[in-house]
């Protein structure tokens, strides 16, 4: 015990004094998970050499992109540069990681350059599983956008809605679990319904779902009945909501029960962990990455940690809030492991806000700890906003949702 305590007391001093060079941590993916992890590493131990690899020179945030689709925000408000990250002493490398060699602990980028690491953190987010939905492809997404990665796709869906005449029909398809942002499809449907009610009131919105239940369902459905009666129709899996094929040439969605033709079609498709996770060998047959919930180290390849949407994080949803919380816990664990110490059991938190209308916010929260190798909900904590809250509470939560976005994006990018 005494021996362990003294090692823990000076892990960095010990390494700085005896090691040849500072420990190198390489982070792949400069989104909510990766950029947060890079900063948390520097904050925890300024001696660690941190490199962040990101394909894009500017990050475009998915949270609040549903507001962009319906004209409540502009895409510029979603964009964040990496100057703050560089100023925090992180080596920023613009490029795409294309291969990982765990035995030699080296990563190769698309330009052929090679980066070594002592520990690797992957936060690559999601890839669209085009092969999992017949008829859908990158080309089809130019007609039937997914808008599940923010940027051009977000703007395409916005232009299509703006161009649609009053009386048109919008169709959205939502995938089976698991997928990025469980309440996201329902927030999107709500805000599109708000847009139609305000601008094109003779139009209809059909939400075809591959599930019978969804996040904050009671709250969403009671708000829809009140705000958008007759405009928004949700079709559950049991009622034939599962889309089995799409056809971009006719903009139609085929279910087991029939076919629906759209004027504007939004396919929220099946997803899997970003490609680099597959290449690194950290995905299992589900397409996602099993991890140890204390250190976020891969269960499949030692030395590689996975956070954010790509990870199987038990009861934690795939959210930006969760990615940020996991990043901070993972950074602490990585610094301890670099110093030869055991990681400490983390306590994690998530909160997902959704806007049902601009002044109508609802939330779901959770507090999590590792139980039997999985991040598990702490009973009695978390849960959703009350079902019977007055309008002032909904307005307050809409305000807090905006405040959350501002705080989180400054925490990560400022």
């Amino acid at each position, binding site marked *: 015990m005494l021996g362990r305590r003294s090692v*823990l007391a000076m892990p960095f001093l010990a390494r700085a004094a005896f090691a040849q060079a500072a420990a190198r941590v390489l982070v792949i993916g400069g989104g909510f998970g990766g950029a947060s992890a890079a900063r948390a590493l520097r904050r925890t131990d300024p001696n660690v050499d941190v490199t962040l690899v990101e394909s894009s020179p500017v990050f475009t945030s998915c949270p609040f992109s549903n507001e962009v689709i319906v004209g409540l925000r502009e895409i510029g408000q979603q964009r964040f540069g990496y100057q703050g990250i560089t100023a925090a002493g992180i080596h920023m490398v613009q490029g795409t990681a294309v291969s990982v060699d765990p035995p030699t602990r080296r990563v190769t980028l698309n330009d052929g350059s090679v980066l070594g690491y002592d520990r690797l953190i992957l936060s690559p987010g999601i890839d669209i599983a085009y092969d999992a939905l017949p008829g859908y492809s990158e080309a089809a997404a130019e007609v039937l956008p997914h808008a599940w990665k923010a940027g051009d796709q977000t703007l395409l869906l916005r232009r299509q809605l703006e161009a649609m005449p009053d009386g048109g029909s919008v169709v959205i398809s939502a995938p089976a679990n698991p997928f990025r942002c469980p309440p996201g499809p329902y927030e999107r449907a709500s805000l599109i319904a708000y847009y139609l009610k305000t601008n094109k009131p003779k139009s209809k919105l059909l939400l075809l779902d591959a599930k019978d239940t969804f996040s904050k369902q009671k709250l969403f459905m009671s708000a829809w009945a009140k705000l958008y009666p007759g405009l928004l129709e949700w079709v559950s899996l049991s009622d034939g909501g599962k889309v089995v094929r799409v056809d971009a040439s006719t903009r139609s969605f085929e279910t087991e029960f029939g076919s629906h033709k759209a004027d504007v079609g939004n396919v929220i498709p099946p997803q899997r962990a970003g490609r680099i996770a597959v290449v690194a060998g950290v995905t299992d047959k589900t397409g996602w990455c099993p991890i140890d919930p204390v250190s976020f180290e891969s269960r499949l390849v030692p030395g590689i940690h996975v956070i954010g949407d790509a990870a199987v994080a038990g009861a934690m949803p795939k959210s930006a809030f969760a990615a940020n919380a996991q990043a901070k816990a993972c950074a602490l664990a990585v610094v301890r492991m670099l110093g030869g110490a055991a990681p400490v059991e983390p306590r994690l938190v998530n909160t997902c806000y959704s806007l049902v209308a601009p002044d109508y916010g609802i939330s779901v*929260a959770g507090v999590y700890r590792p139980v039997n190798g999985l991040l598990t909900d702490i009973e009695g904590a978390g849960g959703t906003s009350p079902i019977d809250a007055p309008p002032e509470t909904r307005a307050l939560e809409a305000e807090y949702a905006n405040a959350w976005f501002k705080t989180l994006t400054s925490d990560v990018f400022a």
Partner: protein
Amino acid sequence: MMKLLVLAVVVSMGAVGFAAEPPPGATTCSGCHGPSFMPVNGRASADLSSGMEAFRSGERPSTVMGRLMKGFSPAEIQAIAVWIAEQK
């Protein structure tokens, strides 16, 4: 109260080895609280812990803090308050 506080400091330091390392859950506050929203860093630990406790018990109404604080024990809340009070 004082005893609890001392205990919490000892527990948090014992668990992490050195004072700068956050106790479990303490890094999640900055997901919502920051310079632009109800800053908490650097506030007196006694104020922080009594505020968090009041949310936890429901004595102080809240939209989300009550739901979050129910996931922490009084000792954990105390340790978080001590750490947050030291942050800039």
